[in-house]
């Protein structure tokens, strides 16, 4: 706590009756807000978040340019089994004769796609359900939606995902994304519901109501922009969860069967006895790059927290 007063001018209470003064005060507040740092400046000002952004950028570049960076295709099994590190195979080959480096590079695509679309899917569902139920708090619509949220929250996620995956015959990456998204919307939805309940009685919402805007316009055009950082944090959180879930599913042998991911690499490593044969590179690297990606997303979320909670900025 610093003894200095905040320098936001507080208009005297009598000014509420004077429209001219109100407009002046509003203009002043606008000025103060626009003088503050932009969201990008806030994120970039934090060392942790900056590192996260750079790290994520590296992963994205590797995923985009995988065909040019990777020496071979991930499903090319034509090399000798368990070749040691050499110029042709930087990290050696697997017992099935695949190049480990190439599998790592191509696997980046799977994790990023799952993270991006899984996160997006969960965020959109959470937004729609959370916002609608929060705005209509106390009505039967809210009761029904809240009930679904609570059921989805208490049902244990991983066992349910595994059960759903076990029933499916098709194992594409999009099916994995769909399942992960269906399971993980409830937590963020409840957060957004709580947030909109605090926002919906603010003056700007009342003003929009008097202006005759309909409910959906108010929710998505007026209230939604006020909670951008919360939505962004929810997206990165859901993306992180989706990436971890995909890796876990693939490690169990329940992932997609079409493309090589870091999880399937670890599944194969365990299945083919990499542990007993001392093939430590094959075990170490997939988990390491996976942790790096999760770390990048976690660090970025630190930065987003700084936007929504300015109190945190002081010790950053």
């Amino acid at each position, binding site marked *: 706590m610093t003894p200095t007063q905040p320098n936001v001018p507080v208009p005297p209470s009598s000014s509420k009756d004077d429209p001219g003064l109100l407009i002046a005060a509003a203009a002043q507040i606008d000025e103060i807000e626009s003088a503050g740092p932009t969201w990008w400046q806030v994120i970039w000002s934090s060392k942790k978040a900056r590192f996260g952004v750079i790290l994520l950028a590296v992963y994205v570049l590797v995923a985009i340019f995988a065909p040019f960076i990777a020496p071979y295709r991930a499903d090319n099994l034509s090399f000798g089994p368990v070749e040691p590190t050499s110029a042709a195979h930087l990290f050696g080959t697997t017992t099935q004769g695949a190049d480990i480096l190439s599998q790592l590079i191509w696997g980046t695509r799977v994790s990023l796609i799952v993270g991006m679309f899984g996160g997006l899917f969960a965020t959109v569902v959470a937004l729609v359900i959370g916002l609608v139920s929060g705005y209509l708090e106390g009505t039967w619509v809210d009761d029904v939606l809240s009930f679904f949220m609570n059921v989805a929250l*208490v049902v*244990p996620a991983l*066992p349910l995902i*595994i059960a759903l995956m076990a*029933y499916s*015959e098709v194992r594409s990456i999009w099916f994995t994304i769909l399942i992960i998204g269906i399971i993980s919307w409830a937590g963020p939805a409840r957060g957004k519901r709580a947030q909109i309940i605090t926002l919906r009685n603010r003056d700007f919402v009342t003003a929009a109501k008097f202006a005759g805007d309909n409910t959906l316009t108010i929710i998505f055009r007026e209230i939604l922009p006020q909670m951008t950082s919360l939505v962004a944090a929810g997206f990165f959180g859901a993306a992180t969860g989706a990436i971890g879930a995909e890796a876990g599913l693939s490690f169990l042998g329940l992932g997609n069967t079409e493309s090589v991911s870091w999880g399937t690499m670890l599944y194969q490593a365990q299945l083919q006895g990499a542990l007993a044969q001392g093939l430590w590179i094959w075990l170490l690297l*997939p*988990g390491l790059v996976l942790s790096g990606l*999760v*770390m990048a997303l976690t660090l970025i979320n630190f930065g987003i927290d700084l936007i929504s909670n300015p109190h945190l900025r002081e010790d950053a």
Partner: protein
Amino acid sequence: MRYFVRRIGYFLLTLWAAVTLNFLIPRLQPGDPAEMMVKKLAGKDALLDPAKVQAMRIMLGAPQGNLFTQYIAYIKQLLRGDLGVSYNYFPTPVTQVIMKALPWTLTLVGVTMLLSFVVGIVLGALAAWKRNSMFDSIVTLGSTFIGTLQAFWIALLLVFAFGYTLGWFPTSGGYDASQPGLNFAFLGDAVYHSILPATVLMLLTPIGWILGMRNNMIMNLGEDYIRLAKAKGVPDKQVALRYAARNALLPSITGLAMALGGILGGQLLIEQTFDYPGLGRIMAQAAMGKDYPLLQAILLFTIVATLLANLIADMLYGILDPRARKASS
């Protein structure tokens, strides 16, 4: 009182929804379990004999009739405690398979969860009390860093290092003795086998408690009653323990109740990595071997356990915090 009645009513409603969900999931998918079982026994290329399939259907107790009569039959079966027969361990009832695995999971995950709760609460409270100190940054940064690692990967690395390379610990399974029994040799063997999986759990599970307790404690330390206590001249240690920590503990206690419900399904990946004979591994194998009755039963067990734990957590909260009771009535 109204608070508790409402909670119980809510529990029953959620329970019904979960049971219905469990009924619907397998029926949303194509494929006939009886056909699959015949294929499994006869080999993939064998022609399907309709009579055999029908016999198998009856033997497995597979559903017949329309969705509604199936639903009624399903509820009746549940009330009798009859969850069907496992395909993989045919013809053992799934409840028997589950009961055999349950003690393993309960001891391994239960013991480590209670331990990690205590460790996490103490570390989190200390970190909050010494906020922005060296200790605080080590604890928070350390937890965040370890939190980004995947549990099954740490498990793989530990098995590799301490199991295969150094040979200090067994690499898989829950025991060596051919016949489990209640004697010291077997118990010692079981503990020896559980050290590596328990280490992984003890590395990862305290993180949530640490960060949660730290946040709650920091929030409580900013409250007026703390300032008042300090102004009154209450010793620091007493303010930290008797005032702040006591209140900050509240959400964590209900969190613990909920987490205990999640024990059953919680550590599936780790049990699978260590080939530990618990529920998680049985479920993973049921999923891979398409043992649907077993899969469904374990899912139902986990859901019911979580719901019960939630109910207990709500009740606890109502008893511990009068504000919760007032807010909802």
